[in-house]
């Protein structure tokens, strides 16, 4: 399996946990701009149409100024947004121009016969979702035949908040997505249910552990790992395997589960040029749209496609971390387009791996304690170095001493408590200042066993104290310390990203698995 979490090594270790979830897309576009030396500020804006706050961020330099929400520019006219927010409006425009789109119908009946007659000519599977629900909480089901539709409507009627249902052709688990910027397909992927691929040596259990290790490297909520539980065992059983099975080389097992996590497989280079041109045309047919994600169903065997939608909120992780193929760094294309003068000008090439924190956005901006945050400029100057200093000390006033040097020398970094009297300091700044800081520590009687080495990992701008040396008079016992640590971890995991509440019947799962299997 060609796993790509390391594809963008320069991005490794720079995404803060607070940006792992929903904020990932925002963070990555803002980060891409920031590391080119562009100014970035973020603010909380209330959307009266969606009844919720959104993070808007502004990117600017002396020449250009653009604000975004998600990866979308705010300069996009509302009329354009209204079109792409509505699948039916989008499909109407595309159909007029002879672009194949999925069939869809809005029904406001629960009469099974009427439904059956109105869906004549539709290709299964179909997606049923409620519309016009006041909470905008769509309920989705994928069905494989008319009987399933009837069952769903009969059994799940109460879940639908209104009588109106949108029924559309959909192969949700294998929808393809292509991101188009400025008349170019800059990335495309196909959704694929979770799977493992055998190498003829490792057991299923080992393969699962291996893939989980890789998934853990992706800046994502920790829930996005494959839990080895009864459910998995059941799925394996359905496919005549167990955790101890050794898969043949290239043999694939799908691990589709209720929580609907899936992989993406990069298909950018596999799309035929005529399809790419058609996808570019789709974007160009929407007035004033220069970038966006086209979601489509694509049958490679017959080279047929149908446009499903143009998405307004994009999950960039799918492009950045495909399980196969090459990673596509969409933020680069976006910032290149709006800030062409910064193309290939990465300040980050010559500096330690700086990143900016998202904690303040989550803690202070989203809850409206602050209205706006301006990110400090990317630390850039010649002779920047990053060093890691470890030392032991039993002195109570470490924080004050360290803090005064951080402040005085304008150094970025952090102070971490390793254990009761062992500490580490990450320092990133001018080499002379860092050397001074090191000498300063050596000159003080409070610090011992000082070690100094290069630091190759991310450095958050500013300085922070992670865990404070606890005055001896007030030492907590180990269990209490552990509790504090646990609380921090729990809080960092709160931002779970799950924008897909799609549910499917077991029969549909089986059908889809079979269909996808045939593609491999």
């Amino acid at each position, binding site marked *: 399996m060609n796993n790509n979490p390391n594809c963008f090594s320069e991005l490794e270790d720079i995404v803060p946990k607070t940006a792992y979830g929903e904020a990932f897309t925002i963070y990555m576009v803002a980060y891409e701009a920031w590391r080119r030396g562009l100014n970035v500020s973020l603010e909380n804006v209330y959307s009266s149409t969606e009844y919720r706050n959104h993070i808007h961020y502004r990117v600017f330099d002396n020449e250009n100024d653009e604000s975004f929400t998600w990866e979308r520019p705010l300069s996009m006219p509302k009329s354009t947004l209204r079109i792409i927010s509505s699948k039916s409006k989008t499909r109407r425009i595309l159909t007029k121009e002879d672009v194949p789109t999925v069939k869809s119908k809005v029904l406001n009946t629960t009469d099974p016969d009427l439904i059956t007659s109105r869906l004549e000519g539709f290709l299964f599977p179909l997606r049923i979702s409620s519309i016009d629900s006041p909470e905008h909480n769509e309920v989705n089901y994928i069905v494989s035949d008319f009987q399933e539709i009837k069952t769903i409507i009969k059994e799940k009627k109460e879940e639908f908040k209104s009588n109106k249902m949108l029924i559309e052709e959909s192969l949700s688990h294998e929808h393809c997505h292509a991101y188009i910027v400025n008349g170019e397909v800059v990335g495309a992927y196909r959704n694929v249910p979770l799977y493992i691929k055998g190498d003829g040596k490792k057991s299923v259990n080992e393969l699962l552990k291996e893939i989980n290790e890789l998934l853990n490297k992706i800046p994502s909520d920790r829930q996005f790992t494959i839990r080895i539980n009864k459910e998995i065992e059941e799925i394996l059983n359905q496919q005549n395997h167990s955790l101890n099975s050794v898969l043949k080389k290239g043999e694939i097992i799908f691990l589709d589960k209720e929580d609907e996590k899936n992989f993406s497989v990069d298909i950018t280079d596999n799309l035929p040029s005529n399809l790419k041109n058609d996808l570019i045309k789709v974007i160009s047919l929407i007035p004033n749209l220069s970038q966006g994600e086209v979601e489509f169903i694509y049958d490679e065997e017959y080279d047929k496609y149908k446009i499903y939608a143009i998405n307004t909120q994009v999950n960039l992780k799918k492009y950045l971390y495909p399980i196969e193929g090459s990673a596509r760094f969409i933020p680069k294309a976006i910032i290149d387009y709006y800030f062409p003068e910064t193309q290939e000008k990465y300040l980050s*090439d010559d500096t330690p791996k700086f990143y900016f924190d998202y904690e303040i956005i989550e803690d202070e901006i989203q809850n409206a304690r602050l209205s706006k945050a301006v990110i400090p400029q990317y630390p850039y100057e010649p002779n920047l170095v990053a060093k890691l200093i470890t030392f032991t000390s039993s002195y109570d006033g470490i924080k004050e001493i360290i803090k005064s040097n951080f402040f005085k020398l304008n150094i970025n970094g952090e102070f971490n408590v390793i254990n009761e009297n062992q500490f580490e300091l990450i320092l990133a700044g001018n080499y002379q200042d860092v050397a001074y800081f090191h000498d300063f520590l050596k000159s003080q009687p409070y610090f011992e066993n000082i070690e100094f080495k290069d630091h190759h990992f991310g450095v958050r701008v500013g300085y922070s104290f992670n865990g404070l040396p606890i005055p001896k008079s007030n030492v907590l016992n180990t269990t209490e310390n552990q509790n504090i640590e646990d609380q921090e971890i729990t809080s960092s995991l709160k931002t779970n990203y799950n924008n897909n509440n799609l549910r499917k019947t077991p029969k549909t799962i089986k059908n889809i698995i079979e269909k996808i299997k045939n593609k491999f």
Partner: protein
Amino acid sequence: MEKTLYLDRPTVAITGSFGKTTAKEITASILSVKYDIYKSNNSNTINAVRKHVKRITDKHEAIVLEMAMNIKGTGKTKCTMIQPNIGVITSVGHAHFKHFNSIYEIVKSKSEMMKYMDPKGTLYLNFDDEYSQFIDTQYFTGDIVKCGVSSGADYRATDIRFNNDGMEFFVKLKGVKERMFVPVLGEHNVINALFGIAIADKFNFSADEIRKGLENVEVQKGRLALEHLEGNRKLLDDSHNANPASMIAGLKVLNNYIDGDKKIALLGDMAELGSFNREGHEKVGTALKKFEFDKVYLYGQSSKYILNKAVEVGFSENKLFHFDNIDHLIEEIVKEFEENTTLMVKASHATNFSKVVEKILDIYKRVE
């Protein structure tokens, strides 16, 4: 923000409270003997450096830039645009003191050169300059070369004398004592020449090549430029800019190196001295006692401090004349600028003594 331009060619940046332009002209003149060079003009603001960076091309084999670091942080900004691998700090003084609170802040500001230049590069310092001694080089990892006239300097000028409108001196290059001549005036400019010589020596220029470069140095207008005028009159035009140290250095040139029956100094206000204004002017007043001038004309509010201090330390009050009106001053200067007279004109640019110089040059023709 632009990415730093790092070059693997000699990239010389020159800063300092005074002497930058002269050191740059001398260094560029020497390096141009062997290299196709890019030399900055006298504009050295952040925007100017940005423009210079854009103009540098692959054909330039060496770069010589003047980089003012007269406001905190500008050195960092400029070295971030283009990182020098050769740094020169000509001097540390009270010029532009209004941007600082103490001389140590100025030291720190000039030290930005050392902090942001190539850590493996070479830094050239003025061995004789009082405040340059405060530059803390302990964390600089490159080479340090000190230039001066005192014993102990890495490049030391000896046997200095005035000769044919310039300075003659000796300097040891690769163990051999070489005679040099630079067509600029003053001991302080000999040290500026040493910077150029030391840099050229680093790049294995021969003594003859260095001499050739020095000969070609062109004296910049208003920077201790000596004009020979009809009636054996001499005009020492140092009207471009001034600070206490450069004013005293100019007076020293007038006193020690220029012949003439009658010597007149015209001194104006020195701007941008901030809280050092009074002390800076008084320093010049105190220094006047060491010189023998026939008359000293003063112009501007701050120059009254020179007057009062000079009187206080015993300089003859009868030789001191203060003016508040530039036209009356010019009238008087023209009258006093008789045959066989040498006149030195020195003030900050803002004092506008170029008007005096223009008037003099209008009246009296230059002679070869």
